[in-house]
């Protein structure tokens, strides 16, 4: 599979502490191994948790692009948190953007304090659907619990991205990188999380 436009923009979006950076690094490393030019832009900096974070993963066959996707040019959005997923598609989405979303909300302290209101998750998913070409919803946190720890939802979501058929990166390559990345950190549980995501996305129909 090759890239239709010569460039594929993937955005992984969520909340600090959800493992965005690890997820983008795994996928990007796999893409490099498959021969692509890859640029990854991260929200880093503030070590504190709870802020909105995004990783831009940009694959190209021809050249090294900058690490930021221009407005409205995301091909795929991998949403670790529903409201962040909506925020991201609002800025970077277009009619052709495909979305894979974990529906589990992470409430901000603004919401918890009552200063802001968190909308019903169904409403958020509906809004994303209005802006997207397609949205597939995967209970990634629940699957991660099955694999042994809810924190591994990021690996489940990488499994979803790898198995989605939306990218030219080979599933086996991603799997190899997962094995290398977690060689010393719960290798079996992480591999299980990846495979659960891989399997789940293939049977998840778009909303």
């Amino acid at each position, binding site marked *: 599979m090759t890239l239709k436009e010569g460039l594929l923009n993937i955005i992984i979006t969520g909340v600090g502490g959800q493992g965005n950076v690890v997820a983008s690094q795994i996928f990007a490393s796999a893409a490099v191994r498959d021969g692509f030019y890859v640029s990854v832009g991260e929200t880093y900096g503030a070590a504190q948790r709870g802020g909105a974070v995004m990783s831009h993963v940009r694959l190209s066959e021809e050249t*090294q692009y900058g690490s930021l996707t221009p407005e409205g040019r995301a091909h795929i959005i991998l949403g670790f948190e529903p409201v962040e997923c909506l925020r991201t598609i609002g800025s970077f989405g277009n009619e052709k953007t495909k979305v894979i979303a974990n529906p589990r909300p992470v409430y901000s302290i603004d919401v*918890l*304090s009552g200063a802001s209101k968190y909308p019903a998750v169904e409403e958020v998913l509906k809004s994303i659907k209005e*802006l997207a070409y397609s949205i597939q919803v995967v209970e990634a946190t629940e699957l991660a619990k099955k694999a042994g720890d809810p924190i591994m939802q990021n690996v489940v979501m990488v499994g979803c991205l790898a198995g989605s058929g939306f990218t030219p990166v080979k599933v086996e390559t991603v799997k190899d990188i997962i094995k290398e990345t977690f060689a010393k950190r719960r290798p079996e549980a992480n591999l299980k999380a990846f495979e659960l995501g891989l399997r789940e996305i293939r049977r998840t129909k778009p909303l």
Partner: protein
Amino acid sequence: MSYVEIDEPGKRVLLMGNEAVARGALEAGVDFCSGYPGNPASEILEALAKAAKKADFYVEWSVNEIVALEVAGAAAFTGLRALTAMKNLGADVCADFLMTTNLSGTRGGFVLVTGDDPSAHSTTSELDTRNYARLAEIPLLEPATTQEAKDMTKWAFDLSQELGVICMVRTVTRLSHSRGVVTLGPIKRDKRSAEFSSQDMWTSGSSNIQCMFHSILHEKLKRAQQKFEESKFNWYVGKENADFIIITSGTGWPYSFEAVKLLGLENEVGILKLGTTWPLPEKLVASHLKHAKEVLFVEETDPFLEQNVKILAAELAAEGVGPITFYGKKSNHIRGEFGAGTGELNVDIAIRALTEVKKVPYPLRGKEYSEKAQKLLSSYVPARSMSFCAGCPHRASFWAIKKAAKWDGRDAIVTGDIGCYSLGMLPTGFSVAKTLHCMGAGIGTANGFGNLKEFGLDKPAIAIAGDSTFYHACMPALVNARWNGSNILLVVLDNNTTAMTGHQPHPGTGVNAMGDSSPRVLIEDICKAVGAEVRVCDPFDQDEAVQNLYEMLQNEGLKVMIFRHECPLAFPKEKKAKVYVDQDKCLSEECGCVKFCTRVFGCPGNIWDYEKGKAKIDEVICNGCGLCAKLCPAGAIIVEEVT
């Protein structure tokens, strides 16, 4: 082993910009590295520290940036290859030595890497350190890609050694913290020995000697300029002899390239990409100004290239070059949300500037789509402010400070400082801190606030500092407070790590950069030696913490409270306590607390069960610290220690 260290020349790997800088140093055969952690530059030294033992070179986290530059400077004087890395504001801290060691010169390759933070994502200033290269009159390189971050760092050592002057490499957040494909070169390892003979003299001089060294520096800069004219890091692409050219550097290069491509202007526009930006390669730039009628500058933060090129254009006017119309920051075409010269650059800013100047359309998303997106975003997306992590001891410390200040009742002035606890100004720190500037400014300004009684301001001054910040910049102000009789309470939030920048060791941790054990320099020993009243307690022992703070606020003179509790992210517990809400005990809206746990306490682990109208704990986020259980007025939060 990370990709930074593998010795497989020709291999294509994914590296972070900071890792690429580290790899460049390895390929240059670096001997001696130093730095102080600071976003976005921290990972440079971290990567070097990991590689140091195997490749047999030295790395230290120094106590602050000026010490870092000085220790590396000494190594460079002896002929070793030395690198110092720091964030933009670190360049301020080391500026004193920089403005003199530029004159004294160097024998070994000596490279200063600065990481700027346009938009100030995790900094208190988006200061553009390129100005320091101009101020210090030293060569400046600006990588545009991760590949260049590696290649330029490597070359900077050769350049510095050949010219005998420190060279600067400037990166920005969007390069330092981005990842890209890098083709590796061979790792170089010639073990050098440090030499210092009785004939050696390293100084900036003073009087006539200083002027002589200053003139030698100018000669070195001229030689740098000659080399820059031929540098492979400068290139021109696009239409030959174009009327319209973009002059760009750093991340401006990929943004300009993509903007031109998206607008389909490849056959009209030329791009002059500069990697060596001070001194300006004037002949190269002049050769393109000669064919240009219009020039757009695309660069991060300050109009640095813009101003330098305009000076050159003014000189060239006498030779018949121009007139040229310039666009960029001055003309307000390259502007962020808060105007030109503020905020981070991106492709969209470059696109907008080109559409305005070239009067070409940019078909983004349909108007209907954008309006729909705007509407959905404004109706459904709540704010997401940053907060202390679940289980963070800073939350406990700020609650104690808030409470003690309230008991005291004199409206204490709390001055903040740099670290995770900078968030003490925000609701997550109960908006306790009222000032925030640079490393050490908390206690420095507290010195002033604590000495204004005769001017009618009689409020207690409470300064906050983290442990690493204490060593970095607080000690002179501590001595000053004692000497000048400033009536202040310093609260040191000691979490046994430099947490904000990714958990680097500091002088109190008993470990150095390379992981070897080192003597612990204790904060209480220093404060006692200065003559302060010192107390230490764990902020999670809330009652004791508040009582101690209150008592100290009543005492005259210099007081230091050390709140000591390890950062739970750096030192994760093997087994976390299980925390849950006994919803039968939670009085909900009926309780006088009015949802204290979620409304005020603000730990992301404390959530609200909207179905049952009761408090709840998010088990994925909760870190098991149990502080909320101590503060819940109904005693509804239960902590079960897991054994």
